[in-house]
């Protein structure tokens, strides 16, 4: 196949030359360049000089050229393979994010209050409690009342009403 330079030299004068048409069929760039000035060039390239596409030659050529541009855009946007260093940086960033999140979660978990089933030892120290003044009394029928104290350390007063006690106490 002839080169693009040779094609550009020979095309205007010999549009029906087989070598020129062969190049036109194979080279999108040259076809695009020629088609903007000579829409029939495409038909000549595919050997369709006698055919008339629906909508006319200009519309057909416009559709084809849109396809050509679309294909070019797609090719240019194809992903290039990332370098090893870029991949490493991305992986490390993701890893740091994950580890950082895990560390923060761990810290929050250890600082959270203990579950209900586990009693913190420091908090479990028994506070000073107050026992009932009368722990037992021999008579079960007796009534025992305790006068509420006015404050901590105040005198405690307990009265027992017991039918079994003698009258002349």
């Amino acid at each position, binding site marked *: 196949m002839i080169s693009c330079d040779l094609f550009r030299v020979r095309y205007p004068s010999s549009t029906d030359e087989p070598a020129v048409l062969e190049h036109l069929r194979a080279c999108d760039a040259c076809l695009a360049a020629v088609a903007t000035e000579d829409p029939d060039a495409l038909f000549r390239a595919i050997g369709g000089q006698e055919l008339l596409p629906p909508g006319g030659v200009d519309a057909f050529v416009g559709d084809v050229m849109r396809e050509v541009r679309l294909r070019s855009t797609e090719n240019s946007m194809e992903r290039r393979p990332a370098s090893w260093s870029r991949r490493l940086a991305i992986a490390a960033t993701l890893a740091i994010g994950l580890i950082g999140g895990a560390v923060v979660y761990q810290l929050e978990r250890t600082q959270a209050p203990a579950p209900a089933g586990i009693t913190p030892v420091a908090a479990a120290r028994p506070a000073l409690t107050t*026992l009932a003044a009368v722990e037992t009394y021999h008579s079960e029928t007796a009534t025992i009342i305790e006068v509420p104290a006015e404050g901590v350390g105040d*005198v405690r007063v307990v009265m027992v009403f017991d039918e079994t006690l003698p009258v002349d*106490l």
Partner: protein
Amino acid sequence: MTKRIALIALLAFSLSGAAALADQAAPAAAEKTLSVFTYQFKHRQAEKAAAAIKALVSAEGTVAIQPSSNSLVITDRTENLKDIAAALHRFDAAPQPVQLSVRLVTAARVAEGGRVPDALKDVAPKLAMLRYNSFDSLGAVNISGREGEPGIIELGERYRANFRFGEYDSASDSIPLVDFKLSRLQDDQLRELYKTTLNLKLGQTLIFGATRDPESQRALVVIVSAKR
């Protein structure tokens, strides 16, 4: 430039990863380190001590009582065992001396001429709340003893009290007067009036009155306090 960033990121990743692993490994190891501690009591009962230290034992810990040797076997985290051991040493103290002050008083409700002896002016306002306004002292005794020891006191010519000093309870800072039995001499015979167990908070006065019913015009009152 990109390579430098990648290297710095890798370094940071390694450090943070190692730190995270170390943080996780340290508490996990500490949690799993359970130790066994055995304590044989000299003065107190192991059963009572088990109840006293219950709040100090963690969820992973266990307490076993060995009645034959009066011992406790505690399994818990090492740092907990230190606190528990200290508490057990304090609990297993030798019987402590106790000073007991007892006054026996008759309280009456009279329309006129109520009497309040000087020795009872400190408690008269309290008994006035129960509408008693006249008081007679039947006897007063100060006695020394030790935890666990029995005591007998004579109050006046007719009354006697028998009791036993109980074990000091640090949780309530109190000591019980166990089986405090008040008896009265009548027709040459000592007759029991009542028997009770009283919890005395150290340094606090307890007024314990007894009568047949709320409308009785006379009551027998014991005023008692304990201190170290």
